[in-house]
């Protein structure tokens, strides 16, 4: 059952009333892949997950596993026949059943012999380190333990596809990182194809083979964590993955990968990545408005060889490892910097900063969401 080559989702559309919450979603998932749907709340990621699970009807498009039609609006395999697994945000454990019975639930339906059920349930619980809680009821477990039970219940049936709906969002920060690590370990071990939904970019980067960034029901970018992090395709993705300092600029001069533009009274130079070069050249030719974006940690303090600016500090936050600075350049342009340097600054202080040219991303206006 687990053996398939790919899951193909084509032109998936879903409306709530008149509102299009999923707009032509296309994705092909290879067997064993860990895919994350990343986006802010209301971007349609949970709706997509529920559509794939078969919990809500789709309004257009199709879902295939190899040649097997799961759902195309007419042919519809109900959720109980899909052999998928799902972990919900609130875990959805059966409160009247023990941990053992919760995990055994799917196996009992499949009429697995009792001795095998026992063995498989214990194996699954061992994998999530819950063996000693086997006879407890969900209400006697902590949040993390409930989460593990839900995960064990999901993997014990060896689903073809595992759907995880923000499973870590109800846990505290430390536990979340621990569970993230365990999720990854379990995925590496079992190789179950997984679709993971989250709004947390750290989780997405840490866990995924590929990330799908969504906004307003539309795919913004699909790529490996590295691609998404380093080469966001538009301002939305850039912003969602930690780019700040988004400024409108006027181009002065462009030559191959080098571009020179004006920001307030300053002249800045940027080096375009090969991936963006043509797109930016076209945009400049079409006289489109350009925006630049820089991560706070990419802006350096001190005198630089190029792109030197003066910043007036307004707020300094001490965050342990790093210090976060907010302030203005050129009087009225907001800037955000984070630095490892152990400096102490007071509001109103002026400091020299510079921006390495290859750290500046340039986006044309139409990509602004």
């Amino acid at each position, binding site marked *: 059952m687990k053996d398939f080559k790919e899951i193909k989702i084509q032109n998936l559309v879903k409306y709530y009333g008149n509102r299009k919450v999923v707009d032509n979603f296309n994705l092909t998932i290879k067997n064993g892949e860990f895919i994350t749907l990343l986006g802010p709340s209301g971007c349609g990621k949970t709706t997509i997950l529920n559509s794939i*699970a078969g919990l809500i009807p789709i309004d257009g498009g199709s879902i295939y596993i190899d040649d097997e039609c799961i759902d195309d609006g007419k042919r519809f395999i109900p959720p109980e*026949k899909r052999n998928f*697994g799902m972990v*919900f945000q609130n875990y*959805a454990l059966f409160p*009247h059943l023990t941990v053992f*019975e919760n995990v055994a639930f799917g196996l009992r*339906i499949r009429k697995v012999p009792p001795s095998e059920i026992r063995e498989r349930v214990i194996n699954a619980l061992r994998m999530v380190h819950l063996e000693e809680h086997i006879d407890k009821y969900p209400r006697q477990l902590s949040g993390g333990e409930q989460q593990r039970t839900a995960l064990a219940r999901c993997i014990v*049936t060896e689903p073809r596809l595992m759907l995880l709906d923000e499973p870590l969002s109800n846990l505290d920060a430390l536990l979340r990182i621990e569970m993230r690590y365990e999720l990854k370990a379990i995925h590496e071990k079992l190789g179950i194809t997984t679709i993971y939904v989250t709004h947390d970019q750290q989780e997405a980067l840490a866990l995924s083979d590929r990330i799908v960034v969504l906004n307003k029901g539309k795919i913004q970018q699909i790529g490996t964590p590295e691609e998404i992090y380093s080469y966001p395709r538009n301002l939305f993705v850039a912003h969602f993955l930690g780019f700040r300092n988004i400024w409108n600029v006027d181009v002065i001069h462009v030559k191959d990968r080098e571009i020179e533009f004006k920001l307030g009274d300053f002249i800045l130079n940027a080096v375009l990545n090969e991936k963006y070069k043509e797109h930016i050249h076209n945009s400049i030719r079409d006289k489109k408005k350009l925006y630049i974006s820089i991560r706070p940690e990419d802006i350096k303090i001190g005198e630089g060889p190029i792109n030197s600016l003066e910043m007036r500090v307004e707020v300094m936050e001490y965050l342990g490892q790093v210090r976060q600075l907010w302030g203005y350049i050129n009087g009225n342009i907001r800037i955000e910097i984070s630095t490892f340097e152990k400096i102490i600054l007071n509001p109103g202080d002026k400091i020299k900063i510079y921006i390495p040219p290859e750290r500046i991303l340039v986006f044309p206006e139409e990509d602004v969401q």
Partner: protein
Amino acid sequence: MKKREFLTVFLLLLPVLIYFIFLFVYPFIYGLHLSLTNDEGKFTLANFIRFLTDPWDANTIWITLKIAIPATLLNVLIAMPLAYYMRHGIKGEKLISFLLILPITLGSVFVAEGMLTYMGPNGWLNKILMALKIIDKPYRFTHNYLGVLLALIIQGFPFVFLMLLGYISGIDPTLEKAASILGASRWYIFRRIIFPLWMPGIAMATSLNFVMNFTVFPSAVLLGQPSGPTRVISIAAYQWAFEKFDFHMASAIAIIMGLVELIFILIVMLIRQRFFKIVATSGGKG
């Protein structure tokens, strides 16, 4: 500090305590005392023995059970599937709820009056049934056992339904989703998830509705045959109290009513507990 806290709690509880003592504890003890004494104020069990050995009186327990148990079961069994289908809310739910609450707010006498006309020999119901050639002469819906049973359903059903709906709507809908993804059919989900979680609510609604039905009075008088087939236990108590003016005897009947209700509730609770245990520890059979 401790003293102050105690005082606050005491003052907050006071209204409830007063209510409870004056409207429940005191009348109950007074009634119990009356039932266990004779006119001279001496302790005796004679009242109970007299009631239980007189076939005309003792039979009222049986008569009342014969009305109350079917009415309760019918109410619960009709309300369950409806509440099940409406558990996630449906269109027009407000209107349905309004229509259901209506009979409760109107009161049993008003409903009985309505039924007497509507279901009487010249009422619409008989006219419609005759026009449709289902029956050829008026059917007797009132002034018999059926009349009382129907009245108890009309008034009890909304109550049971709303209680069951309230309870089942409180069950987290993601449990059903989780079960269905694990491979469970609708029927399996109902049996293994919804029903066991619903059970406490069903037991509660059944018990309360039984108590309502067992103490039936106006419907039994207005819609039944209070001198015979529907001479329920509350009529017996009424006659002893206000026709024969024997409050000792009437109190004994009231205590017996309470005991029967208690026994019924205990049986319901036992079934519930036993059922719950079986489900909770459900062994090999899947």
